[in-house]
C-alpha cells in the first residue's frame, strides 16, 4: 500500500468511526430511539458515497467548523 493509499484509508476509517459513534454508541436517555433501520441504512449508503471522496468530507467538516467554531 502506498503512502497516499494509507492516508486515504485512515481518513475513511476515521469517518466510519465517527458515524458509528454518533449513531450507534453514546447514551440513550429515552427508552426508545426513533431512528428506523432504514434511516441508518440510508446514512450508510450516503456514507459509502462520501467515502469515495475524502475531499467531500474535508469540505463538510470545514463548513461546519466555519459556521460554528470560535478560534
Amino acid at each position, binding site marked *: *500500500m502506498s503512502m497516499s493509499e*494509507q492516508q486515504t*484509508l*485512515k481518513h475513511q*476509517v*476515521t469517518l466510519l*468511526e*465517527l*458515524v458509528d*459513534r*454518533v*449513531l*450507534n*454508541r*453514546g*447514551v*440513550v*436517555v*429515552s*427508552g*426508545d*430511539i*426513533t*431512528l428506523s433501520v432504514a*434511516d*441508518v441504512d*440510508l*446514512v450508510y449508503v*450516503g*456514507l459509502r458515497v*462520501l467515502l469515495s471522496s475524502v475531499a467531500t468530507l474535508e469540505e*463538510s*467538516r470545514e463548513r*461546519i*467548523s466555519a*459556521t*460554528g*467554531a*470560535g478560534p
Partner: protein
Amino acid sequence: MIHLYGVVEELAELPPAVVGVDEGPLERHRVEGLELIVSRTVERNDVTQAAVLSHANVVEELMARSGAVLPARFGHTFTDEQELAAAVKTKASELARGLKLVRGCLEFGLRALSGDGASQNTPGEPSGRDYMRTRLAEEKARQRLAEELHEPLARLSRASTRFGGASRDLLQAAYLVPRRYVAAFGDEVRRLEAAHADLTIVCTGPWPPYTFAANGEGEA
C-alpha cells in the same frame, strides 16, 4: 422538538458561536442535578450527513470545555422539556455513574486490518480435513495476534471494548484512556505498528467517550 447532545459536568460556558443541528443555538438545562446540553430543532431529526456532523461537532466542543461529557446517541428528539426531564429522571443514577467512569478520560479507537492474502491456499488439492485444519490454525493465529495488539492497550485503559467487526478487521476496539496515560498509549500504538509492519493499524481519536457513555447502565 429538543435535540440532546449530552450530559456535562463543570462546563464553564457554552462554546461561543457553535450552533447545533438545524443551526439551533445551544441551551443548558438542569434536571436532577445533571446538566444537559440541548438545542431546538424544527422537526424530528432526519439523519443527514450535516446533522450527524453537527451533533459530533457540538459534542467535541463540549468535550474541550467540560470536566466530563457523556455524549448522547443521535436519533431521539424530545417533544418538550417535560418529556426530556422525565426521561432523564428515570436514568439519573446510570448517567451519574457514566459521568464518573468517563471523567478525566479520552476515547481512542483502533482498527487493525491484516494484509491482503493472509490465507494463501496451499498448492495442490488439499483434502477437506487438511483445509479445515489449516483454517482452524489460521483462525487461532489471528485471535492470538488480536490479543497481542489489544492487551497492552487495554492495560493502559480504564475500560476497553472489542467489537466483532468486519471479517477483514483483525481487531476493532475502543479504549477509555485516562489523560495521564494518553502519551503512553500513543507510544504503545507506535510500538505495535513497528512490531507488526505487515498489518494496517489505524488508531483514531481522541474521541469524546461515546463508546463508554452507556457503561453506567446495569453496573453496580
